[in-house]
């Protein structure tokens, strides 16, 4: 018999509501952005973007306030365990806000140029951010799934945002159909988890599963095989979202077809959300299944996926000429690197995961911002050749681009290097021989990656400008974009040379995973 909810709890109180204050504010601003779009005349629609940015600022302030007031109380559980706030959720919510803010900022001129300036766009980004924030703060399968869908559904629409563009439609259709299918698989897996454990609360699931991994009890039978099935299904759904290799086919098409600003957003925001969900599921709920007696645990599964992901991603990226496709494959490869941190299971690995996601957000949005800027200057900017001679036309943009590209490649003295160092280092630090081999493969992969990142540099600095550029006028970035990009680039360099502040932040996440999740029995229904 599953435990019935016989005793009905009273209504959630104001205490509970206080913990979702940032999310409430975000919801209000997202709704208001929709209304504002109707109220504004056609020529003033871009004001919605600034309104959304102000909203995100408010959300950040509310979040900071919440952190300041509750930092000592973490982890917090509210809404009967539906809400679960720990260090990981705090850090990643900031990451999501930054990702959304960057995407909105870079979108304003782009949408103006494409004549698609509408409030829905910003509302959808805000709603997606809301979903991500709830993914980071949910402690229950139901809440997790609903918020995950909230996050994904907005992006499906955003990918198809340019209705007149056939590529956008095609990308949206592909992404939507495969995405929904993977969500359904994941839901099936979650239902199996519930069926085996009888709980939807992550902490209680973890506790129950911990009792099963030794082979179950006479009363329960041996549910490990069923849990394996559930694990594979859940992992399939999540790995789809982060475009890990058996499930990566959608990524190049969707990245290429989507409006470039949306590509920038989905390569950092929802992806980070999926990493958070992956961490929540694998490192918390299903943590006892990392390694099981007589059966492969998820560590082995994930290791195989990680190796495949980075190898396939890097090798496929080498032959690409389209910048967006190339970056799609590069982001697949990066997904592989990040999975390594989860596989290693050490503090250092988790720090690497958090560190790399944070810096990757800066670098990837930066690269896309410059591609977007090229685009609105009359250059389509999606072919690698379009970058030819960028240095002579727009030296500052080229230098910024170079910094971000070097960061993605993981050149020492950029933040990308530190992230990779942590991720690969954690494999060796864990002391298991098979992980060391994986580390070697990873380093080889990073070398392959240098090649295609170097193509960017060659195009920008060594090649002469193409003849057929429609508009050869110097590239001008909007002041706000220029400042943001410069700050991002400085951050990439700064954290590459002196990473300690960001490592401290990443450590919050790692501590949250290693210490808080380990005592999962303490986290139950309020």
């Amino acid at each position, binding site marked *: 018999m*599953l435990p019935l909810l016989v005793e009905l*709890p009273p*209504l959630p109180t104001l205490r509970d509501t206080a913990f979702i204050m940032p999310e409430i504010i975000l919801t209000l601003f997202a709704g208001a952005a929709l209304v504002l779009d109707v109220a504004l005349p056609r020529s003033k629609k871009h004001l919605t973007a600034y309104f959304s940015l102000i909203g995100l600022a408010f959300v950040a302030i509310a979040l900071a306030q919440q952190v300041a007031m509750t930092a000592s109380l973490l982890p917090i559980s509210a809404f009967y365990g539906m809400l679960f706030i720990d260090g990981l959720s705090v850090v990643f919510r900031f990451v999501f806000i930054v990702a959304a803010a960057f995407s909105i900022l870079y979108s304003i001129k782009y949408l103006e140029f494409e004549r698609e300036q509408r409030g829905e766009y910003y509302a959808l980004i805000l709603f997606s951010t809301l979903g991500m924030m709830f993914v980071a703060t949910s402690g229950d399968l139901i809440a997790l799934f609903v*918020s995950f869908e909230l996050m994904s559904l907005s992006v499906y*629409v955003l990918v198809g945002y340019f209705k007149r563009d056939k590529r956008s439609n095609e990308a949206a259709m592909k992404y939507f159909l495969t995405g929904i299918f993977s969500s359904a698989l994941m839901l099936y897996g979650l239902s199996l988890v519930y069926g*085996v454990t009888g709980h939807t609360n992550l902490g209680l699931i973890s506790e129950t599963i911990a009792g099963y991994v030794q082979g*179950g009890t006479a009363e329960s039978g041996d549910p490990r095989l069923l849990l394996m*099935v559930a694990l594979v299904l859940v992992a399939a759904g999540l790995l789809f979202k982060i475009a890990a290799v058996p499930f990566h086919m959608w990524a190049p098409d969707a990245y290429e077809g989507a409006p470039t600003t949306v590509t920038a957003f989905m390569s950092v925001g929802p992806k980070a959300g999926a990493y958070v969900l992956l961490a929540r599921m694998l490192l918390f709920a299903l943590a006892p299944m990392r390694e099981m007696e007589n059966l492969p645990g998820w560590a082995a599964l994930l290791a195989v996926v990680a190796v495949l992901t980075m190898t396939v991603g890097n090798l496929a990226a080498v032959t690409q000429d389209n910048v967006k496709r190339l970056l799609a494959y590069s982001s697949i490869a990066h997904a592989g690197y990040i999975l390594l941190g989860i596989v290693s299971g050490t503090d250092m690995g988790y720090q690497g995961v958090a560190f790399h996601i944070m810096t990757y957000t800066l670098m990837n949005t930066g690269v896309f911002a410059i591609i977007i800027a090229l685009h609105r200057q009359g250059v389509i900017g999606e072919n690698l050749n379009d970058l030819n001679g960028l240095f002579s036309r727009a030296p500052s943009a080229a230098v910024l681009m170079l910094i971000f590209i070097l960061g993605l490649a993981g050149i020492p003295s950029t933040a990308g290097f530190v992230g990779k160092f942590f991720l690969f280092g954690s494999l060796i630090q864990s002391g298991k021989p098979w992980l060391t081999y994986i580390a070697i493969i990873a380093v080889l992969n990073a070398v392959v990656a240098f090649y295609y990142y170097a193509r960017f540099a060659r195009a920008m600095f060594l090649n002469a400008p193409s003849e057929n550029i429609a508009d050869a006028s110097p590239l001008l970035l909007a002041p706000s974009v220029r400042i943001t990009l410069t700050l991002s680039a400085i951050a990439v360099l700064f954290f590459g040379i002196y990473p300690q502040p960001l490592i401290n932040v990443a450590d919050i996440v790692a501590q949250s995973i290693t210490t808080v999740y380990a005592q999962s029995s303490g986290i139950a229904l309020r």
Partner: protein
Amino acid sequence: MTFQQLLFIGFAALVLGGGIAVVLLRNPLYGAFALITSFVGLSALYVMMGAQFIGAAQIVVYAGAIMMLFVFVIMLLNVRADEERPPRHRFLVWLAAPLALLLSAGLWLAVAGVQGDRAPSGEAGTVERVGKNLMTRYLLPFELTSVLILLAVVGALHLAKREKE
């Protein structure tokens, strides 16, 4: 075999038969129809588990509303039975049956290991209890779902709206 088991087997057969028919039938309208049959069986299974509200909602929402729209679209587009597929992927059909068998065997193996009665019973699914649970324990997901639906409406409107130039 008790009466309950007999009913279960009957409805489960309805669900599975409907599902298989959806896959096998070439005419999309028949497929939709088979899906509705499957939903009706599913709803009966819910009711047998004491989840009466879910059972009724299953029919109202899926069989009543969603499948209605499906049928509507099929009728409007006048979709006829699929033409024969080009023989390019024929081998996949032969691959599908063994793979499905393999999957079934694996699932059977997995489920066979588990023991114990895991069916919720009693009044868990009555309207009163579902309502109270939605307003207390599941308030947050409930509200999140409403945001999700709002978002879906906005997205659908955006994609379907005709541009005025």
